[in-house]
């Protein structure tokens, strides 16, 4: 079985089929990109995997154990951490406090957690801002904080929800380098939801395309880019 696997996951909201029989696999140290038009269910899938929604049918497995229907905090414990599309920092707390809270999952000693947090802040280039109030940060920094906080939890799988949105090209580039580094050096696997198609094409091992809750295609970036159906969905638009 793959490291993370969803089997025929379905989720309905009232009359709306947000997800229909979605099968997705993520192997160790893999980066899978998840793309699709607005409303295709990408964030819903993240929510379901991370435990914020319970699927109506289907199952989810992580490291060969079933995690369907577990609470988000349990899933985070097991090693799957998600970020939020609209960043959700602990607003009135400082950058350092935010990341420290993430680190406290693995160590109950505040000083140790703070130490870890500082290291992570250095690696994402937020060290200078460590004492700033997180709600005062720019979008770019908020995204980095969101990532840093997730990293502090020591995840084996990171579910990133549009982490590049609102960033400048160079900011996005540095995040992508960071993701690559994490994959290589720490063996973290990624499921990345993105709109910025060009970026995700370059970094992903595989791409899955969702449309109206269904998985249309799952293949290498080149094949997906050439795929007729996918092109039709995107109406041939180019994203920067």
């Amino acid at each position, binding site marked *: 079985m793959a490291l993370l696997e969803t089997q025929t996951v379905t989720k309905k909201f009232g009359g709306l089929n947000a997800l229909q029989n979605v099968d997705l696999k993520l192997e160790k140290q893999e980066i899978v990109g998840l793309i699709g038009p607005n409303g295709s269910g990408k964030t819903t899938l993240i929510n379901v995997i*991370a435990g914020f929604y319970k699927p109506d049918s289907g199952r989810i497995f992580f490291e060969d154990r079933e995690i369907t229907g577990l609470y988000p905090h349990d899933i*985070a*414990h097991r090693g799957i951490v998600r970020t939020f599309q609209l960043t959700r920092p*602990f607003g009135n*707390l400082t950058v350092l406090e935010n990341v420290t809270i993430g680190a406290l999952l693995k160590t*109950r000693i505040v000083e140790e957690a703070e130490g870890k947090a500082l290291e992570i802040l250095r690696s994402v280039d937020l060290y200078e801002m460590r004492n700033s109030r997180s709600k005062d940060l720019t979008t770019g920094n908020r995204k980095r904080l969101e990532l840093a*906080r*997730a990293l502090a939890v020591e995840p084996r799988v990171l579910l990133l929800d549009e982490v590049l949105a609102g960033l400048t090209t160079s900011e996005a580039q540095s995040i992508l380098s960071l993701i690559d580094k994490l994959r290589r050096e720490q063996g973290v696997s990624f499921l990345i939801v993105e709109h910025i198609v060009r970026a995700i094409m370059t970094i992903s091992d595989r791409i899955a395309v969702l449309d109206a809750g269904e998985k249309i295609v799952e293949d290498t970036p080149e094949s997906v880019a050439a795929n007729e159906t996918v092109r039709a969905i995107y109406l041939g638009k180019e994203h920067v």
Partner: protein
Amino acid sequence: MPFPRNLLILTILAAVIPILPLPSYFFHILIMLLLFSYLSTAWTIVSGYAKQISLGHSSFVGLGAYVSTLLLIYFGVTPWFGAVAAIAVSLAVAVLIGFPAFKFGVRGPYFSFATMALAAILESIFISARKITGGSLGISIPYKESWAYFQFSSKIPYYYIALLTWFLAVTLAFSIERNWFGYYLMAIREDEDAAEAVGINVTRSKLIALLLSVGLTAWGGVFYAQYNLYIDPATLFGLPLSFQIATTSTIGNPKRWIGPTIGALVLVPFSEILRVVTGATFGSLSFLLYGALLIIVARFLPNGLHGLMTEKAKQ
């Protein structure tokens, strides 16, 4: 900063005050001050740190007072042991209400309201059960001075007990602030979903905070009963007490261990002075100004008076 020096100095000063030949009334004020600081500090652990705002904390003051008093009157149980039972009962009620509430995501004004409802229900129950509790006329505790029965003729022993329990409460609050649990409560206060996403068991943390708060509060009720020697449902389960506890902490700073104490330092003498000055309309004017003060603090001082003090200190 391992342990606030200010707290130690304050406590030591407070401990030596009784050396001076001060009138009994003065100690009454101090005891009330300590009691309200204590109750508000207990409140703030769940309502300030975790932002589960309880507007019905009088439920537990009342339960504490009534359980220990009823055990004393009917079974001759010393209040020291009665307190244990009182705390146990209060914790049980807190779990009964808190667990389903937190598990099913009852938040914000709904939670506040459920706590108010609890206090109102308890008040009705204790009034209805006239035969046992004396109804709205309350219970007078027969005078029997002794340590075993937690009664003293002088105010000084009460003062020291109040001082000790206040000290323990603020120490607890302080240590929570510094350790991982306090950080988790802060996370919950800011964003519950984000907290879940980083592995915090939000329901359990809220419940622990609630239980700590309730346990402390119940003891406050026992103390009040033994100090006042008279308890009645309207005072003990009533809304004004719940509001007073909540506002005392909020005016000071609900997010820090010293906030409730500062709030009490301002409000308790304030209401006493008003009470003395305005004579006949004793409570009314003080509550009115109280209300005005709340409105002003809410608008201009989101971090309470303590927040104001620390900002001024930074400048």
